[in-house]
């Protein structure tokens, strides 16, 4: 119980520190946390509208872009922000209460918070302006979003720990994360693919998350494919591997 209280204290301290470090107190300060993903999403939504990236005529492009790009941001930012997190915060470990996991929890919480805020605000603005319709089933949207957050957190811990072993891993990660974007389900619906290809893309956990989210958002107007049990299973496996690698990395801080 006491160690939980300490961890809560440490994470709060790290959150406040990270926010001021990253955004400072100038102009809108901490609001950049939400404004940054909002700008990204708006930019992509605009670009896709002009490009006509939507194939299906049933799909309103703005809603398609907002649901898709927000979904990518929530997991990819978490994972990106965690890379090299141990090296960058090694000096904080001189404070006995600070553990490497706290550093990652902090970074993930900030990225998830920012992307969630951006998604909610953009969704509300567009709905209020009647650019898009409100979601059909809020619980499914929430479920899909949580699956994506979990995936991002697990990937973040894994990549954060793994990049402490070698810079090569970080270089590979840049390529992988870039290539994962077109595969992430942000820019397509699984239903557009032939059945054989559907099975392959559905192996990717984030594709399942976006599909569930869009099922909730658009309801019966679109056909979606996903497997919640499978996605939870993959997320769980990633989480366990991530924590195991992190435990080892934590023991080796400074050894490289």
């Amino acid at each position, binding site marked *: 119980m006491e160690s939980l209280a300490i961890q809560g*204290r*440490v994470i709060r*301290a790290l959150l406040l520190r990270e926010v001021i*470090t990253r955004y400072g107190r100038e102009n809108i300060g901490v609001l950049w946390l939400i404004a940054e993903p909002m700008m990204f999403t708006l930019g992509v939504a605009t670009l896709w509208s002009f490009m006509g990236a939507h194939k299906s005529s049933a799909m309103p492009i703005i809603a398609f872009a907002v649901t898709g790009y927000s979904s990518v941001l929530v997991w990819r930012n978490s994972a990106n922000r965690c890379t090299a997190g141990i090296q960058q915060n090694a*000096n*904080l*470990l*001189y404070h006995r209460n600070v553990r490497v996991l706290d550093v990652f929890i902090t970074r993930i919480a900030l990225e998830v918070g920012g992307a969630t805020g951006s998604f909610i605000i953009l969704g509300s603005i567009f709905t209020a302006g009647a650019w898009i319709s409100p979601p059909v089933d809020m619980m499914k949207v929430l479920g899909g979003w949580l699956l994506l957050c979990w995936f991002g957190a697990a990937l973040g811990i894994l990549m954060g720990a793994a990049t402490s072993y070698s810079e090569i891993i970080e270089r590979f990660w840049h390529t992988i994360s870039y290539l994962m974007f077109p595969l992430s389900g942000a820019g397509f619906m699984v239903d557009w693919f032939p059945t054989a290809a559907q099975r392959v893309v559905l192996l990717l956990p984030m594709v399942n998350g976006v599909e569930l989210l869009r099922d909730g958002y658009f309801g019966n107007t679109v056909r979606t494919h996903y497997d919640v049990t499978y996605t939870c299973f993959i997320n769980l496996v990633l989480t366990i591997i991530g924590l195991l690698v992190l435990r080892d990395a934590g*023991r080796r801080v*400074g050894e490289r």
Partner: protein
Amino acid sequence: MIRLEGVTKQYHMRSGPRRVLDNVSFTLERGRHIGILGLNGAGKSTLIRLLSGAELPSTGIIDRQMSVSWPLAFTGAFQGNLSGLDNLKFVSRIYGADWRKLLPFVEDFTELGSYLREPVVHYSSGMMMRLAFALSMAIEFDCFLIDEGLSVGDQRFGDRCHYELFQKRKDRAFILVSHDQNVIRMYCERAAVLHMGRLYEFENVEQAYEFYDSQYVPPPGPQFD
């Protein structure tokens, strides 16, 4: 009490594994003061990192039955964009202290004035040192880790540090790691010498210095007396 038993630390270097600490054991009771002497490269900084918990031993046990400070006046954990005050708030939050109660002491001790609310990047090294020392004194610990460093700063600051640490807090335990002759003689009842990763313990400080001095290898070239 803090107890080290068979502590070994190995680093992976380009040239292969390198054992920096080799089977180090010692125990320090509450309120006792130990000095650890060592030449450059003996493993002093590594020992400090292990004692503070910044790194874990490769093998062996470190058992802490009292709260151990971060290395005294350590500036490495400062974030440049944060002000001195932000850094005070940060350590206060981490250790569950109320920064408002600590602020008067920090303001008085650092003599930073309005600079306390400026980002740390704009500080001179002297200002940085005053802030770091003040933060170390603001949070209470049973045992203080002291890694050289006390010789920096001007006379007035040095005197204040010595008063805060060795007078007001002499009931606490100290682990003083240094190659400074005087500090360890003045404040420690016993001393150990770290040499090539091994720790040699001595009954009293003088014996430790005798051993320490016998390790001295004069540099090549002409000698000056």
